[in-house]
């Protein structure tokens, strides 16, 4: 930006503030005539006390007070907030809503931005979309990217402790689950610990699951 444009920019800025002020005066005169029956109307009005500048302009503005740019095509398929009448004149096309997550997203857009349901459904759709993406990766033989996508290489280099801790916790969880599932086959290894399995057996759902699993394994 050269100096001329720069000055122009500054002048525009200050004009805007004056314009705001002048429009305020005009409006005051117009409304003053209309509201002359209200005693004391606007006697203390102070146009300079405007903490909302530059967000609000005092002259009447509406969504039809600017010439809209031409419409990007394909807008029929774009989800738009129901707080606006139509799709904006340009929009992104990064990832059209599709699949199950797309259905949830379409549902979300039935609610306005002020509703919790709108955002909650979108977050749910995001999680479903992650599973869809993972399934797609597997279909394309890319499931092995899982750890590298998480930046494991950098973490291994600069933060090995976290990687080791996570791996240890992961292994422990898998080990525990395997232990629960296969406990009938290994009771003799640790006979004195049998009461722990007994405790677990009290949870009938888990018990049923384990029995089903064992039956399946025996088949």
């Amino acid at each position, binding site marked *: *930006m050269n100096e001329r*444009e*720069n000055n122009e*920019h*500054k002048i525009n*800025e200050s004009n805007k503030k004056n314009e705001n002020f002048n429009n305020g005066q005009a409006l005051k005169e117009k409304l003053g005539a209309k509201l002359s029956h209200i005693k004391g109307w606007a006697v203390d009005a102070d146009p300079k006390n405007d903490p909302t500048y*530059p*967000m609000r*302009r005092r002259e009447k*503005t509406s*969504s039809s*007070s*600017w010439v*809209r*740019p*031409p419409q*990007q*095509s*394909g*807008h029929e398929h*774009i*989800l738009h*907030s129901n*707080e*606006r009448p*139509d799709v*904006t*004149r*340009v*929009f*992104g*096309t*990064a*990832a059209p*809503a599709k699949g199950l*997550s797309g259905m949830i*997203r379409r549902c979300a*857009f039935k609610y306005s*931005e002020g509703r*919790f349901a709108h*955002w909650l459904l*979108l*977050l749910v*759709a*995001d*999680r479903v*979309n*992650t599973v869809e*993406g993972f399934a797609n990766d597997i279909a394309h033989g890319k499931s092995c*990217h899982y750890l*590298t*996508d*998480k*930046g*494991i*290489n*950098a*973490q291994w280099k*600069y933060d090995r402790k*976290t990687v080791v801790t996570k791996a240890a916790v992961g292994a422990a969880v898998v080990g525990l689950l395997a232990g629960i599932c296969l406990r009938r086959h290994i009771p003799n290894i640790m006979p004195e610990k049998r009461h722990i399995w007994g405790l677990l057996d009290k949870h009938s759902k888990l018990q049923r699951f384990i029995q089903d699993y064992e039956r399946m394994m025996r088949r």
Partner: protein
Amino acid sequence: MLAMNYRGPGRVRASHKPMPEILHPQDAIVRVTRSCICGSDLHLYHGNVPDTRVGTTFGHEFTGVVEEIGAEVRNLRVGDQVLVPFNIACGKCIFCQQGLFGNCHESNPEATAVGGIFGYSHTAGGYEGGQAEYVRVPYADVGPTVIPAGMDLDDAVLLTDVVPTGYQAAEMGGIQVGDTVVVFGAGPVGIMAAKSAWLFGAGRVIVIDQLDYRLEFVKRYAQCEAYNFRSIEDPVLFIKKITDHLGADVCIDAVGAEAAGSAMQTITGRKLLLQAGSATALQWSINSVKKGGVVSIVGVYGPTGNMIPIGNVLNKGLTIRANQTAVKRHLPRLIEHVQNGVLNPKELITHRIPLQDIADAYRIFSDKLDGCIKPLLIT
């Protein structure tokens, strides 16, 4: 072309995608020369922004060369070297006309509360981002600014977001000569806010964070005071004590939705997503500012709601100012500051990582590994 590809929370990769095309007569296609990862991208990366779709490309801080222009583009020529503000703005709506380029009403169909932003989920318009070899730039006559001859591209790329955001944070604080300003967050944005506070005449600038390496950096770079809240039991009380028990004139929240420091906020805001992020820094800002003071928010929060002490805002008579940065509005002044050496943005860049290794770049920046302040991606 090669582009960053989001796969789900915490997982990204570089993969090949089709070249972007002109979809509107006011579009341009830009070949990216520099791009950065921003603290805002981490909200997407962690899966906290609703409508972040798998397969999309992030990135709203980039410079590049104009490769192709649409039929109605007048101000740009093929071959121009441009820096591209992160906001997508039409330049015509009532908000753009007032210089509020972060609040454009013609760039984001999906939400009315936020304007269009490159590579920032479908909640911000569904645009592909600049962490790629090429990118589609809508309303090319409005945002993109030709990089002045002689300006380092590393400086230019930081003018697309970080520098104007820090500057606007200070501007919105309404800082008067002699004011005491507290900045929460010593990330790139907080660092630039601290530096900018002096430009508006602050008498004292204090920065709060939890990472010693960033605090060391900001102390030297922005010549300010810097304190680690991990070694302070009660940050609000601490600020009161060092500000004559009245509080700071201005507090700036340059942290946003992923703040640490309060278990309650972290669990409800970041783990359970019961609120739109953890509002710890905002809570501290409100509580440590002087009565009648100003809280300026540039840290980003989600669209639902947060737990903040609104009663204290009332009782203390505070003014809260906040916005997405209107990058283009600040560019003339900031370009001048960079050219005159008043601001030195490129010193923030600690890492230069090939786009190919994007997963590692995100991990390093997200986990604050290897002394990272600002990572730059090389295409």
